[in-house]
């Protein structure tokens, strides 16, 4: 064995306990019995495939990906790779999963609070840059649902990581009252090739051509539809109405919202020469409610606690709005993705280290 071979062997020495099972079926049954999965079947994480994932990402098993800021848990690459294998990833997906977890460990993301809260949030993940096409990620038809292996498996890796590494087990650390389907997987790519706009990650400060993830603690997406106008303001009035409804029926507090804009709407903005910044500026102005409007949705008991004339904006500034071009080529269907709890968690954008 050469020195470099010995070095590689040492780097890939895994420390996780191993359990012997008859086959892949029994492996899944073991994980199901122990509550180590989300209820769906897993791919068995063997030493060989975990090593292959780590090698693909050039990570040592004990490399610390991040530290959970509240409970100070040091998250190792080995445990992240195990989650990715279980979720059905290919080895080349691992750098994306690692970037997502690095982003979630940034203090402004509020990982502990958003994981444990009764509010039941899920990390909403947007992927930008060349990695989208390299991994054949879906940015078009059915983008918020099933439509591509990479989207599904990368998003699911995060849930399995939360369950097994953070202890985010429902009824234990995860105190969600309802949760939402995005807690299984909630990962999209932006349709950069068929969009008039600059990518989300570039707007948020990364160089063009960089592969990146943006992660936001989010409630379930709410779909809107407007196929009856070519006026960009009227289109955005529909999105803003859904945001106002969320402010009244869920949480009035300002923070990051995301809006997912399909091609049919993007064409209207392109014809009117509206940039993402124009969209943000307009939505900031119109997505607001007066505190007294709480009275109209059954919340009179809290409306009067403070000044009822106060105007609450959905966003602290226009920059709080994440504008994402994605969705199938036909249909005037867009979506808003609301924040977990105002500004208690803020979106984080970070580069993917390939």
């Amino acid at each position, binding site marked *: 064995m050469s020195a470099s071979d010995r070095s590689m062997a040492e780097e890939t020495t895994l420390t996780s306990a191993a359990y012997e099972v008859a086959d892949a079926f029994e*492996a899944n049954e073991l994980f199901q019995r122990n509550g180590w999965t989300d209820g769906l079947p897993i791919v*068995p994480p063997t030493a060989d495939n975990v090593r292959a994932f780590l090698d693909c990402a050039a990570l040592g098993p004990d490399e610390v990906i991040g530290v959970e800021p509240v409970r100070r848990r040091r*998250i190792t690459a080995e445990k992240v790779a195990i989650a990715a294998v279980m979720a059905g990833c290919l080895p080349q997906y691992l750098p994306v999963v690692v970037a997502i977890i690095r982003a979630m460990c940034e203090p402004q993301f509020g990982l502990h609070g958003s994981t444990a809260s009764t509010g039941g949030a899920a990390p909403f993940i947007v992927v930008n840059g060349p990695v989208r096409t390299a991994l054949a990620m879906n940015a078009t038809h059915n983008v918020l649902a099933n439509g591509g292996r990479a989207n599904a498996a990368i998003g699911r890796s995060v849930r399995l990581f939360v369950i097994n*590494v953070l202890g985010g087990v429902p009824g234990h650390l995860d105190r969600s009252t309802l949760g939402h389907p995005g807690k299984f997987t909630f990962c999209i790519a932006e349709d950069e090739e068929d969009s008039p706009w600059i990518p989300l990650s570039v707007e948020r400060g990364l160089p063009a051509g960089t592969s990146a993830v943006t992660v936001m603690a989010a409630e379930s997406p709410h779909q809107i539809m407007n196929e009856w106008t070519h006026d960009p303001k009227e289109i955005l009035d529909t999105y803003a109405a859904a945001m106002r409804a969320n402010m009244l029926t869920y949480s009035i507090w300002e923070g990051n919202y995301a809006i997912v804009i399909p091609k049919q709407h993007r064409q209207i903005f392109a014809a009117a020469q509206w940039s993402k910044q124009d969209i943000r500026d307009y939505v900031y102005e119109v997505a607001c409610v007066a505190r007294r409007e709480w009275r109209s949705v059954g919340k009179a008991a809290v409306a009067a606690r403070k000044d009822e004339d106060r105007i609450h904006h959905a966003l602290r500034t226009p920059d709080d709005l994440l504008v994402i071009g994605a969705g199938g080529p036909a249909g005037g269907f867009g979506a808003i993705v609301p924040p977990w*709890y105002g500004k208690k*968690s803020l979106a984080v954008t970070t580069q993917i280290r390939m």
Partner: protein
Amino acid sequence: MTLKVLDPRLGAEGAALRPAPPLTSLDGTVIALLDNAKIGTGRFYDFVSEILERDHGVREFIRRRKPDATRPVTPELLAEMSGADALVSAIGD
């Protein structure tokens, strides 16, 4: 041919914590009440402190409120409560 699968969980680090010995009596004690900044906690602690003082002889309370329900208590607040014989920490809603 069998299969060996890896444990996906992250083990706890460091030495196990041991709980402090329980107080034999609350009579004459100082109790810290840490408010988690949820909307009903202050009112709840009003009742708790009334009962502890009236029925159990607690001498004094140190009441502090976290600045943010979603973040951990700050070291400064913990230091302010360090002289208490016991601490009650609010969790959840």
